[in-house]
């Protein structure tokens, strides 16, 4: 296996409990926040184009004077489609290095502002935006409670009749990707990213996360991104639940696109409370450690992405062609990721 599960166990154990689960879990700090900070220039270099269906949504919601928020904006690539028709956009992300890139990229847009902000605690008033993008964020969130809070926050800042688009990685890659006959073995995985130690994106002074290992053959650091992959229906159920149920939200579309499950929805009405609905806090201190249920991923669930699922009667697929020189994944977990683990 390319990565060690031991470190992940450590990361899980450090989870903040005094904060009643409100703090950022250690696994996200180390395997999402710190990873994106380290890989920002190289990641941006391979992802400058918005996905067509995301851009299509962005254009549809982005009329003149429309207010849009891009939750988890990364390098700001969705901003162009949003602002094309005269909309204004706030791009929020936790990664300052990515935001600096977004700022430079979006400078020529009439009104794109960047904010260093956590999607579970958006610094915006209720019912403010006409549109929200929430693309490729939810698969980096490690507990069901945090996912609910994050989606609820996105809905909170939407005005009634505001529209949201959610994208998150799909478990069932094999059903849709022609090249892939596999699926992830577990819903919570670590996905490698090869950070090149040479070339145009390399920053010698950058401080990589402590879990990074060296791949001497590729002259790259191997970083591990934490991902929760969504099974069919899971994202839809999450959106309905977190938005407050069918009285509060209308689902406009639910589909598969580029390795993601996607949900487009319209907020019907604003819930009166000014804070997102908080799930009942578990009394963590009194529950024996081993009995704690699914609110955090167990170490046993954290696994490298799956290898071949036995498919009786079918010839095994040919080995995936040469692993790409840059990132292992692009924006979706395709077959090439799985090939790394053989």
């Amino acid at each position, binding site marked *: 296996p390319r990565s060690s599960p031991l470190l992940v166990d450590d990361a899980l154990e450090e989870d*903040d409990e005094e*904060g009643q689960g*409100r*703090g950022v879990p250690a696994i996200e700090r180390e395997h999402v926040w710190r990873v994106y900070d380290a890989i920002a220039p190289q990641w941006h270099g391979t992802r400058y184009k918005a996905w067509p269906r995301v851009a299509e949504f962005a254009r549809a919601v982005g*009329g*003149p*004077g*429309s*207010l849009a928020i891009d939750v988890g904006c990364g390098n700001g690539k969705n901003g162009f489609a949003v602002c094309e028709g*005269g909309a*204004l956009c*706030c791009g929020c992300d*936790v990664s*300052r290095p990515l*935001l*600096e890139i977004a*700022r430079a990229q979006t400078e020529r847009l*009439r*009104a794109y*502002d*960047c*904010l*260093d*902000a*956590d999607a*579970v*605690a*958006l*610094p*915006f*008033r*209720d019912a*403010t*935006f006409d549109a929200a993008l929430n693309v490729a964020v939810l698969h980096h969130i490690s507990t069901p409670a945090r996912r609910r809070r994050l989606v609820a926050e996105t809905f909170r800042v939407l005005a009634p009749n505001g529209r949201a688009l959610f994208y998150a990685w799909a478990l069932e890659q094999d059903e849709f990707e022609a090249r892939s006959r596999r699926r992830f073995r577990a819903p919570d995985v670590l996905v490698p990213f090869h950070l090149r130690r040479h070339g145009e994106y390399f920053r010698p002074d950058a401080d990589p996360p402590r879990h990074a290992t060296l791949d001497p053959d590729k002259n790259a650091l191997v970083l591990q991104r934490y991902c929760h992959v969504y099974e069919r229906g899971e994202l839809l159920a999450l959106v309905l639940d977190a938005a407050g149920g069918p009285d509060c939200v209308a689902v406009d579309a639910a589909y598969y696109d580029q390795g993601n499950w996607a949900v487009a929805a319209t907020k019907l009405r604003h819930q009166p409370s*000014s804070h997102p609905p908080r799930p009942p806090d578990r009394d963590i201190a009194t529950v024996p450690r081993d009995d704690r249920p699914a609110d955090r991923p167990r170490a046993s669930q954290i696994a490298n992405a799956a290898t071949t699922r036995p498919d009786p009667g079918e010839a095994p697929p040919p080995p995936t062609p040469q692993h790409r020189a840059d990132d292992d994944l692009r924006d979706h977990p395709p077959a090439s990721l799985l090939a790394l683990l053989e």
Partner: protein
Amino acid sequence: MRLVTHNMMRSNVKDVSEDEGYPLIIEASEVKSEECEFNADVIRRLVPKMDYKALRDAAEKVDPESALPDELPDDVVDEALLRKLHHVLLEIHVVEGDLVCPKTGRRFQITNGIPNMLLHEDEL
């Protein structure tokens, strides 16, 4: 950070209500003005979504010469006024400074035009 964005923001510190946390107080150390293309339609549609008093107060603070009127008509059609609003909403950038929570006094730093609104553990 443009004033249009500031107008939508509020303190996200826990136990600070919608009203208590708005508007954030701007303490700017560096402000710049950058021209961008004026579109009357955009500004006309945008203005009713703004909290005008907060906008006027913020403009007075960071661009004292902006001289916005005390009140706005329900539908702004006068081009000169639209252009003034365009300037205040979209062309003024707070590059460095702080946003201050009106209830707790918590300071959020703006660096290179990007406010840092990440909360500490005890503020979540």
